[in-house]
C-alpha cells in the first residue's frame, strides 16, 4: 500500500480570463501529510490555481482532482473535503469568536456535541482561551488568523488550502502559525499554502515556483538549490554596491545579478570567474571587493529560475 497517497492532482490545469492566461498548463501532485508551498509574486497565478482546486472557479483547460473528486465535475464533493482560508479576511468582525466558530461549523453541517468538541479544539489550538466572547474586531491580528485557520478546519478536512494566510501579521505570530501548520501536517492533514515570504517557503516540504501563470520549478528545498548545476552563487561586498551592479553584470560569464541591500548576488558560470570579477571591480574603482561563494537561498533560486524562463 502506498504510504503517502496523492491528495491533489493537477494536469495541464489552465485558466484564461479573456486573452489573459492567468494559469498556463500547470501540473503537480500533492501527497498526504505534505506541506506544499506555492511561491510566486502577486499576479503569478497562485490564487487562481487555488480557487480552481477549491471548486470556486472552473478550469478553462486541463483537469484537477482533490481527494479523487474532479474539481470541475463535482465541486460540491470537493468542498466537503477541504478547508479554505482565503487571502481576504474570512471572519465576521462584528461577531464573537464563539459565534464565528458556531457559524462556520454550521455552514459545514456540524452541530451539537461534535460541533462543541471542535469549537473547543479550535479555541485551544488558536490560543484563544478566555477570548471566546470577544468580538473578532477586537482581536490582535495573529489571534484572528489562528481563529480563521480553526474555522477552516472544524470539519476535519483532509486537505486545507491557505492563500497567503500570514499577510499583515507580525513575525512572532507568523512563527506560531507555522508551528500549527507543522502540527497539522504531522497529524496527516495535507497543507497547500501560498506565500511570498521566503522564510515560510523554507518550512515547506516541497515548493512550486510560479511565475506569470507557469510553474517554473517544483522540488524539495534541497533539490531546488541544485538548479544552479556547475554555476556558483557569489555574494559580493564592495563599496557603492548599487553602482557596481552594472559593472558586474557586463562581465562575460556572469549570468545573473541581483542586489540584496548593500551586497550583490551574482551567478557565475564557474568558480574560476571570481578572480576576474575582483579585477574588473578594482579597475572600475569599486575596491576593495570581497567575494564569497554562498549556498543559494530560495530567493536566489527563485530569481535564477525566473531569469532562465525569461531568457528562453
Amino acid at each position, binding site marked *: 500500500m502506498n504510504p503517502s497517497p496523492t491528495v491533489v492532482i493537477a494536469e495541464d490545469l489552465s485558466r484564461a480570463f479573456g486573452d489573459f492566461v492567468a494559469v498556463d498548463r500547470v501540473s503537480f501532485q500533492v501527497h498526504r501529510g505534505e506541506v506544499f508551498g506555492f511561491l510566486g509574486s502577486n499576479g503569478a497565478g497562485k490564487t487562481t490555481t487555488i480557487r480552481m482546486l*477549491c*471548486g*470556486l472557479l472552473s478550469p478553462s483547460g486541463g483537469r484537477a482532482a482533490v481527494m479523487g473528486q474532479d474539481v470541475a465535475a463535482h465541486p*460540491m464533493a470537493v*468542498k*466537503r473535503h*477541504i478547508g*479554505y*482560508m*482565503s*487571502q*481576504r*479576511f*474570512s*471572519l*465576521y*468582525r*462584528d*461577531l464573537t469568536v464563539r*459565534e464565528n466558530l*458556531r*457559524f*462556520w*461549523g*454550521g*455552514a*459545514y*453541517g*456540524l*452541530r451539537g456535541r461534535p460541533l462543541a468538541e471542535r469549537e473547543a479544539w479550535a479555541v485551544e489550538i488558536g490560543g484563544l482561551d478566555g477570548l471566546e466572547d470577544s*468580538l473578532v474586531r477586537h482581536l490582535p491580528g495573529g489571534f484572528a488568523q489562528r481563529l480563521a485557520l480553526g474555522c*477552516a478546519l472544524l470539519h476535519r478536512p483532509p486537505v486545507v*488550502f491557505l492563500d497567503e494566510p500570514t499577510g499583515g501579521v507580525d513575525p512572532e505570530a507568523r512563527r506560531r502559525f507555522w508551528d500549527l501548520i507543522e502540527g497539522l501536517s504531522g497529524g496527516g492533514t495535507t497543507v497547500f499554502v501560498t506565500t511570498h515570504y521566503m522564510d515560510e517557503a523554507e518550512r515547506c516540504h516541497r515548493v512550486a515556483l510560479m511565475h506569470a501563470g507557469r510553474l517554473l520549478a517544483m522540488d524539495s528545498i534541497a533539490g531546488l538549490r541544485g538548479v544552479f548545476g556547475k554555476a556558483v552563487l557569489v555574494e559580493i561586498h564592495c563599496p557603492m554596491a548599487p553602482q557596481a551592479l552594472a559593472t558586474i553584470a557586463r562581465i562575460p560569464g556572469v549570468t545573473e545579478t541581483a542586489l540584496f541591500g548593500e551586497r550583490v548576488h551574482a551567478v557565475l558560470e564557474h568558480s574560476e570567474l571570481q578572480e576576474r570579477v575582483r579585477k574588473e571591480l578594482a579597475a572600475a574603482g569599486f575596491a576593495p571587493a570581497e567575494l564569497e561563494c554562498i549556498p543559494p537561498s530560495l530567493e536566489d533560486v527563485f530569481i535564477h529560475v525566473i531569469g532562465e524562463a525569461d531568457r528562453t
Partner: protein
Amino acid sequence: MIRRIAAMAVKEFLHLKRDRRTTFLLLGMPAVLLVFYGFALSFDVEHVRLAIVDQDNSRQSREAANAFVRCGFFDLVWQGDNARDVERLLDAGRVQAALVIPPRYGATLAQGREVSLQFVLDGADARMATTVLGYARQIAASVTPVTYAGGRMGPVVAVPRVWYNPNLSSPIFLVPGLVAFIMAISAVVATALAVVREKERGTMEALRATPLRAIELLVGKTIPYFLIGFAAAAGCLVTAWAVFDMPMQGSIIWLAVVTVLFLAGSLGWGVFLSTVADTQQMAFQLGLLSSMLPNMLLSGFIFPISSMPPVLRLITHIVPARYFLAALREIVLKGAGMTVWWPDALGLVVFAAVVLLLAAGRIVRSL
C-alpha cells in the same frame, strides 16, 4: 440542509443584533415615513378661497350661495354683485374659485325652467381644479329643486354616491399604496446590502468554499429580513389604522398572505440586485431606484393604471407593487374575498418565483 440554513439565519440575526441602528431603521422607519407621507401627500382640497357674485339676490340665490359656504371646502373671501370683478380677483390670485349667480335665477327656477349657475375656477393646478369641480357639481345638484309642477318632470339630477371611501379621503386611498411603497424599498435595499456586504468584506469567497449551497445561502440570509419586513408591514398597517382611520374590512389572514407573497418577491429582487452590484453603495442606489420609481409611478399608487398609455399599462404588469396594492385595497378597504383578488395574488406568486429563480441562478454563477 436545515442546519446550514439555520446557521446562516442565526448569523444574520447576530449581525442585526450588533447593528441596532440599522435594525431600528428597518423596523421603525416604515411607520414613521408612513405618518409623514400620509399627511404630506393628502389630495384633499380644503380652504379654497371663493368669491360669490350674486346678481339676483333672491331667496333661491341666497340658498345656493349658502350651500357653497356651508359645505366646508370653501372660505368665502369676497362677495359682490358685479360679474366683471371675477376676472380681476382670479388674476390677482385673491380667489381660486368664483360662483356667479345670474340675474333672474330665482324667478327662472320658480317657473320650472332650466337655469345655469356659473362656476369659475383657477385651473392652474389641474388636480385641485378637478377635485373642486367635483365638489361644486355635488353642491349644485343638492340645491337644484326637483319640481313636479302639474305632473311635469323637473330637471333630472344624478346624485353620485361614493362607496368604500365615502368622504373620498385620500389617506385611506393612499395608505395601502404607501405601505407597499415603503415595504418594497426597505426590503429590497436591506437584502441587497446584506449580500453585497459579504462580497465587500471578502467573506463570500470563504462561504463559497463551504458545502453551503446557493439556495441555502439565499434562504438563510433572507429569513431575518423577511421577519423584520413582516413586522414593519404590520407596524405600518396598525399605524394606518390608528392615525389615518384606515378601515380594516377584510381578513387579517389574507392580508398576511399577500404581504408574505409581496415580501418574497421584494427580497428576491434585493438578492438579485446584490449579484449585480459589487459595492454597498451601488446596491443601495440600484435598490432605491428600482423599487422607488416603479412603485411610485407604475403601481397605481398615485396615478391610476387605467388612465396610463397602453405601453405603460403593459409595463405595470412587471411591477409587483401593482398587484400588492390592488389586493391590499380590495382586502383592507372593501373586505373582498379571494375570488376578487386572486389574479393579483397570482401575479405576486409569479413575480416572486421568477425573481427568486433568477437570483438563485445568478448567485451560483456570479458571487
